[in-house]
């Protein structure tokens, strides 16, 4: 190894060690005010991968600013909610009362977020969601302390409905898991798609095999199939739909179901499926190029949309805290600064609507093989620009 490389390697190690020391051992009585952030997600169980992707995205956002946000030395505390609302509430209470955090990122799922959002608002904790965006919080339950760095749950599905409508697709077959988010998302799709719904199927939450449903689709002969199957469901359904051979005649569209972390597990049968998203690995803005390069270098895997939103959450906090000069005491000023969203989002255009949910663009992405034979999602069209959620009128934002 040449000498200069060696020195820079030592420098890197030293700076990582220094950063780690800052991040994990900064004493609570440090002279400068420090920033404490809790990240809540299902760090154990089947969704642990997703929780880690959010944490990685957020940590990168902190590290890239020298382990400081808005000039404040930043400590990140990770809490496991096991995807259970009661455990999430305990985790949030612990973060607020024992750790005295200033900001909480998460919880990640609609059920855990809804169970904890009031508690965070009552404690005047700034709460940023990098994943879930339940309609309640976008509408009647909106809170000055809550910000969504991701989306309102229905958006991607409404956009896909609009797109298929415009494309002239007449008959669509819908599938989703039988739980509130499954129904919400398909309702989002139906809100904008005015063609014929030839089937609307809600499958059990413990169901793994979709052969029976796929046989019914084959019989119904729709023009397209639209599904919301997050995480494991998405892998199972896409695999089996691809294996059935139907995909050649009846294209598969989805949102929040497939991402680049699940593509290796699905395999080549995912090629030619379409998804609706507000961020993709190839989203062509300089901030995204910098983010994806740094992320792959730091964590050695390709970020997914939730990592990107978590990274944005760190950037919007950094920008707002810089604006208020690190003053965490004046909450209304901090909230006003976050509302400005004066940061370079990895999705390009980003603004907050009055209910603290984003106004953003939506793209159509397709699963393809890149030149090295790797399965990736490629942006093929912009479906909507400056799109925002349908619930903003229901939100009468209270004063902080």
């Amino acid at each position, binding site marked *: 190894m040449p000498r200069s490389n060696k020195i820079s390697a030592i420098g890197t190690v030293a700076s990582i060690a220094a950063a780690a020391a800052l991040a994990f051992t900064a004493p609570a009585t440090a002279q400068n005010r420090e920033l404490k952030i809790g990240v809540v997600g299902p760090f154990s169980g*089947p969704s642990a991968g997703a929780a880690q992707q959010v944490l990685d995205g957020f940590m990168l956002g902190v590290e890239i600013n020298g382990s400081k946000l808005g000039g404040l030395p930043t400590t990140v505390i990770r809490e496991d909610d096991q995807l259970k609302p009661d455990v999430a509430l305990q985790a949030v209470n612990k973060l607020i009362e024992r750790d005295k955090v200033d900001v909480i990122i998460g919880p990640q799922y609609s059920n855990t977020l809804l169970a904890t959002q009031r508690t965070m608002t009552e404690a005047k904790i700034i709460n940023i969601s990098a994943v879930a965006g339940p309609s309640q919080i976008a509408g009647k339950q909106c809170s000055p302390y809550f910000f969504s760095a991701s989306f309102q749950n229905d958006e991607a599905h409404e956009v896909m409905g609009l797109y298929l409508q415009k494309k002239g697709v007449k008959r669509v077959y819908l599938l989703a898991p*039988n739980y509130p988010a499954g129904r919400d998302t398909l309702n989002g799709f139906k809100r904008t798609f005015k063609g014929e719904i030839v089937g609307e199927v809600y*499958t059990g939450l*413990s169901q*793994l*095999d979709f052969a029976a*449903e796929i046989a019914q689709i084959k019989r119904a002969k729709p023009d397209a199939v639209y599904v919301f199957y997050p995480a494991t469901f998405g892998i199972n359904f896409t*695999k*089996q739909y691809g294996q059935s051979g139907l995909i050649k005649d009846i294209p598969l569209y989805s949102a929040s179901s497939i991402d680049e972390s699940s593509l290796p597990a699905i395999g080549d049968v995912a090629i030619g499926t379409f998804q609706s998203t507000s961020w993709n690995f190839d989203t062509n803005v300089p901030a995204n190029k910098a983010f994806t390069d740094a992320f792959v270098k730091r964590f050695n895997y390709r970020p997914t949309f939730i990592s990107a939103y978590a990274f944005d959450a760190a950037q919007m906090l950094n920008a707002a805290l810089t604006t208020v000069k690190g003053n965490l005491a004046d909450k209304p000023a901090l909230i006003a600064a976050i509302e400005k969203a004066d940061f370079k989002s990895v999705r390009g255009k980003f603004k907050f609507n009055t209910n603290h949910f984003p106004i953003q663009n939506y793209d159509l992405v397709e699963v393809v093989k890149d030149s090295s034979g790797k399965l990736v999602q490629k942006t093929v069209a912009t479906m909507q620009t400056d799109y925002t959620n349908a619930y903003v009128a229901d939100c009468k934002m209270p004063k902080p």
Partner: protein
Amino acid sequence: MSTLALIIVQLMNGIQLGVMLFLMASGLTLVFGLMNFINLAHGSFYMIGAFIASSAVLWTGGFPSALVIAMLGTGLVGLALELGLLRHLYRKSHLQQVLITFGLILVLNELARIIWGALPVALRIPDFLSGSVEIMSGETYPVYRLAILAVGLLVALVLYFIINHTRAGMWVRAGASDRVIASAMGVNVGLVFSLLFAFGAALAGLAGVMAGPILTVQVGMGEPILILSLVVTVIGGIGSVRGAFIASLLVGIVDTFGRVLLPPALGSMIIFVFMAIFLAYRPQGLFATGR
């Protein structure tokens, strides 16, 4: 697609789900029946089988060899657990067995996470089993699902032969009927237990390998199938492989048609309704062994 063709395809889907359940339930019911031991960690063998196969495909490049390695590996894990831990639990109460084997699920899940990571891993359909074939005029069915059917039925036949026509099978039957007398008649019950446990684990591993290419290979994949396998075991009659086979097919078919014909809330609980009604009339299950 004609209605008759649809019914036939759905029937095949149901039977295919059934034989998968049978691979799991046969080991579970034998262990339960013979050793009076409730092993909740049986689903973990299913997961371990799928994970080992996903790695073995990378080493050997072939699906059949990966399948054999996964079955052997899962069997060995089962044997080691039986010898090292589980055999000490046979005399404990069912509650203690349930608690300890539940703890074992958590431990094995975490071990799998440490070895293979939290993200799902790939296990592909081998080339020679990919694609679809025409089963009726104009009706195609995936070759791999036919292969699952064939493997499941083959295992059922082999088990039938071993249990009813070999000396080892006689020991198993004797042990399941009356452990104490069998032991007094000179059957080395301890050895039979160990081998049977390993064999049951290997079958669960086989189920995991076969399910891998159509489902998600990830930590915790064994738990949903364990619940269905327990239903099968109870309906079939504890300790009866014949009962487990018939119950597996019944559960597979009832589940498949229930999902298609009934509203979703009812469709996803149809199996449990079926079990409740069944047990109300026949609490000992289809074929109970003498216990």
